[in-house]
C-alpha cells in the first residue's frame, strides 16, 4: 500500500477549489448548499415577522384591508410576478449552461436575470410614485380620506414594509448576480465547480418564492 499516494489522480478544477478539511469536492459543495439552506431559513424567519404583522392587522381590519388592496394596480402586480418567475427560469438555465460547458451563454442568462430584477424594481418605483400621489403614504404620510383611515393606513404600512424589504433583497440579488455574471463570463466556473452560482441562484429563487406569497396577499385578496 506504500504506492497508494502515487496512484492519486491529477488535481481537477474541482479539486483545486476543495478545502483541505473536505475529503471530496462533492462533500464540499453539499456542505455549502446546506449552509445556504440554513441562511435561507433565517431569511424566511426575517420575513415571518412581517407576514405575522399582515395576518394580525388583517384579522383586525378585514374589510379595510380588502378595500385598500383594491386600490393597488392588480395588473401591474401580476406583471411583477411574471417578471420574477421568468427571471427565476433564466437563473436556473444559467446553472444548466455552466453544467453543460457553455459559460458565455450562462453569463448571458445571468445578465437577463439581473435585467429582469431591475425591471421589477423599476415597476415598483412606478407603483410607489402612484401610491404616494394618491395620498397612500406610509404611517403619518397617509393623506387619503377615501377609505376608512385607520385600517387603510395600516394596510399601506404593511404594504411598504413587505414590498420594501423584498425590494432590498431583489437589489442585493441583482448586485450579487451581476458579479457572478462577470465571473462566469471570465470562465471561472465549470461543471466541476459552480458553487457560487448555485448559491446565488438559491438566494434569487427564495426571493422569488417570497414574492409569490406577497402577490396574492397584497394585490388579490
Amino acid at each position, binding site marked *: 500500500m506504500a504506492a497508494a499516494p502515487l496512484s492519486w489522480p491529477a488535481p481537477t478544477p474541482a479539486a483545486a477549489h476543495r478545502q483541505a478539511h473536505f475529503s471530496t469536492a*462533492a462533500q464540499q459543495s453539499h456542505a455549502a448548499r446546506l449552509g445556504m439552506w440554513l441562511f435561507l431559513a433565517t431569511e424566511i424567519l426575517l420575513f415571518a415577522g412581517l407576514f405575522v404583522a399582515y395576518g394580525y392587522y388583517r384579522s383586525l381590519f378585514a374589510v379595510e384591508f380588502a378595500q385598500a388592496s383594491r386600490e393597488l394596480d392588480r395588473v401591474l402586480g*401580476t406583471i411583477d410576478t411574471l417578471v420574477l418567475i421568468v427571471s427565476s427560469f433564466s437563473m436556473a438555465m444559467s446553472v444548466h449552461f455552466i*453544467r453543460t460547458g457553455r459559460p458565455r451563454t450562462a453569463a448571458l442568462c445571468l445578465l437577463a436575470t439581473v435585467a429582469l430584477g431591475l425591471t421589477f424594481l423599476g415597476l415598483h418605483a412606478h407603483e410607489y410614485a402612484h401610491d404616494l400621489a394618491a395620498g397612500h403614504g406610509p404611517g403619518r404620510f397617509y393623506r387619503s380620506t377615501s377609505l376608512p383611515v385607520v385600517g387603510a393606513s395600516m394596510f399601506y404600512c404593511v404594504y411598504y414594509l413587505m414590498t420594501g424589504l423584498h425590494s432590498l433583497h431583489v437589489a442585493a440579488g441583482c448586485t450579487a448576480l451581476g458579479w457572478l455574471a462577470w465571473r462566469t463570463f471570465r470562465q471561472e466556473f465549470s461543471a466541476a465547480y459552480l458553487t457560487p452560482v448555485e448559491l446565488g441562484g438559491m438566494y434569487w429563487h427564495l426571493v422569488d418564492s417570497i414574492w409569490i*406569497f406577497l402577490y396574492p396577499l397584497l*394585490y388579490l385578496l
Partner: protein
Amino acid sequence: MVSVMSLMMESRSEVEREERALAHAGWPRYLLVLAALVALTVITFGLSYVDTGAWSGAIALLIATGKASLVVLFFMHLREQRGAARAYLLLSLGFVLLLLGGVLADGLTRFRPALPAGDEALPPTSEGDGS
C-alpha cells in the same frame, strides 16, 4: 467502529448521489415548471375577478403554496436533496406557522375593547391627516 465507518461510507455515497442527480437535471423540466408557474399566475389573477366568497383567500394561498413548492423543488433542487436541507426548510416554515398561530389566537380571542380601535375612535372632524 465498524458501524461508524459504514455510516460514513453511506453518507458519502449519499452526497455523491446528490451531486450526480443535480448534474443530470435537464432544461426541459425547467421549461415545464416555467409554463406551470405562468399558468398558475394567470389562473389566480383570473380567479381574483370571480366572486368565490369566503374561499377566495384559501384558494389564492393554496395556488401560491403550489407555485412556491415548484420553485423550491425544481429550481432550488430540493427534490434531489435529502436530510438536513429539507429539515431546515420545513422547520423554519413550522416556526412561521407557530408564530402566526400564536399571534392570531391572541388577537382573535381578546375581549373586543382590548383591541386597537378602528375609525370609530377618531373624532368626527378628522380629515385623516393623522393629527
